[in-house]
């Protein structure tokens, strides 16, 4: 049943989707990590010589209406966007996993209760939570945005993990662990969870990408971070300043294109991994 380790590596290296996905993500990781070495200004620094200038030797990707350097914004925006995706992905996946595991494993009224909670959270749109938080918080930062997204994005994970747990629960090794006197918590984390590792990785990747897209939508309707920069905010500012209509393509294109690339890179990665882990899906 189980693939040998080198099998997985073998397929992973040969999988084209995985390679494309990895290449895209690696590129943006590079932008994110090495970029600050080249970014000469802060994201909000009015650094350019001219407002709304097309790409030139000083401002490699041009400037915004406020003379901000778009290259710097792109670097720091990519960082924030990854941070949002990563944090929100981690939070959403963790909460979803925990709730899914317990609901699926413990079952009974506990399951009913948790699933009701899940359904309610599916039903109450996350903007509701955002409004409350927006009112209480002195400001909204990138981290807060990702916490909010993470805290509202888990119901899908919980549902999926629960059904996976239900099927894993029927497996012999869970029974064996139970008659070995292992505690339910240990069973969940030692026996069930590791068997879902590949699944968890994929869930995380999807949450990562989903969070990025969700953050963009929040930025757009005015519930984005009030401090800092992200690719979504760049896009929103370009939109509000008519960048496309006036012809400032260098302001409008990079943010949207990067988000599209990052998220599709994540999707490629996900499908690639799916194919590596599930022999049924392989091209060959």
């Amino acid at each position, binding site marked *: *049943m*189980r693939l040998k380790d080198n099998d997985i590596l073998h397929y992973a290296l040969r999988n084209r989707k995985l390679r494309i996905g990895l290449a895209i993500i690696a590129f943006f990781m590079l932008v994110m990590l090495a970029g600050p070495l080249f970014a000469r200004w802060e994201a909000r620094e009015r650094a350019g010589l001219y407002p709304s200038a097309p790409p030139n030797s000083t401002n490699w990707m041009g400037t915004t209406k406020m003379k901000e350097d778009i290259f710097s914004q792109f670097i720091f925006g990519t960082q924030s966007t990854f941070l949002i995706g990563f944090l929100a992905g981690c939070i959403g996946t963790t909460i979803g996993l925990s709730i899914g595991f317990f609901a699926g494993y413990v079952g009974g009224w506990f399951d009913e209760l948790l699933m009701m909670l899940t359904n309610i959270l599916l039903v109450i749109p996350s903007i509701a939570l955002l409004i409350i938080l927006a009112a209480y918080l002195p400001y909204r930062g990138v981290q807060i945005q990702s916490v909010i997204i993470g805290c509202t994005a888990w119901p899908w994970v919980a549902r999926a993990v629960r059904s996976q747990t239900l099927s894993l629960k029927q*497996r*012999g*090794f869970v*029974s*064996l*662990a*139970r*008659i*070995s*006197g*292992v*505690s339910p918590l240990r069973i969940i984390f030692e*026996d069930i969870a*590791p*068997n879902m590792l590949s699944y968890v990785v994929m869930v995380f990747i999807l949450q990562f990408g989903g969070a990025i897209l969700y953050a963009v939508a929040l930025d757009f309707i005015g519930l984005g971070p009030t401090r800092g920069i992200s690719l979504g905010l760049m896009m929103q500012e370009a939109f509000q300043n008519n960048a496309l209509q006036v012809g400032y393509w260098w302001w409008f294109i990079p943010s949207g294109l990067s988000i599209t690339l990052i998220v599709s890179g994540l999707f490629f990665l996900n499908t690639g991994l799916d194919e590596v882990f599930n022999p049924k899906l392989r091209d060959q």
Partner: protein
Amino acid sequence: MLQVEGLSKTYNKSSRARVRAVNNVSFSVEKGQIVSLIGESGSGKSTIGNMVLQLTKPSSGRILFGNQDITRQRSRSSLKEYYRKVQGVFQDPFSTFNPIFRVDRVFAILHREFFPNEAAEAWQQRVEAALLSVGLTPAAVCGAYCHQLSGGQLQRILIARALLLEAELLVADEIISMLDASTRIDVLNLLGEMRERGLSMMFVTHDLSLGYYISDRVIILYKGVMVESGNTQTVFSDPQHPYSRSLLEAVPRLDVRWDELPPRPASRHEAAMFNPDCDKGSPRMEQIGEDHWIAVRDCLPGTEL
């Protein structure tokens, strides 16, 4: 040592399709005895095994072990106490081992859960002794993953596991059905040896010949209901219940051609089974011989059978 009284399990997720997986089953297992639960798939035999192992909660009835009703005590410590004495081996050896760990993890868990005070080295020696006693070379299995071992080896490891705990009762659920013929007999013989050591066993199987081969007593189940039980020899030589009969007749015989089988006279019980005037509820067990019991239905007075 184990007494099962009026055990029932009903899955009622839907009112129309309310399934009585186990219906009012009573039996007992004495020390050193092997009792086989025999029935086709869906007869509820595995559910009984799971209830005895406390993996499934019974809907009603009692399970007494050493005069204690274990269905009433579900605290972790009492559960652990119970598992010291009652252990199980399951049908599919490959799914019984977590594929991502080495197989000897099952021993490590035992060490952690039941013998935390025992020194690692002493424990290791006991593990090796147990493995040797089930006919395995410790070096060959320790450190291996389950997909690297055969089904027979894996089942032996599980038996060794029960030995380490010095369990008193082993619930063996179809443990050889997924093994190939040559290893089957080895495992069966091993079970026989275990009985010699005083281990009681509940042997769950759909295989009549296995039940006949290994057990002291048999219980034949049909759709969750006990239809016949008793001494293995008695039941097999003179099955009384129509279901037991058809079950035994369905086994191909080497000495008689199919069409030469003598016609089977319909029994009183068979007639009762299909008569609408007879009770449709759970039948009661009636003793018809020394250690030979059969399920009967009560019919309305004057019903022509």
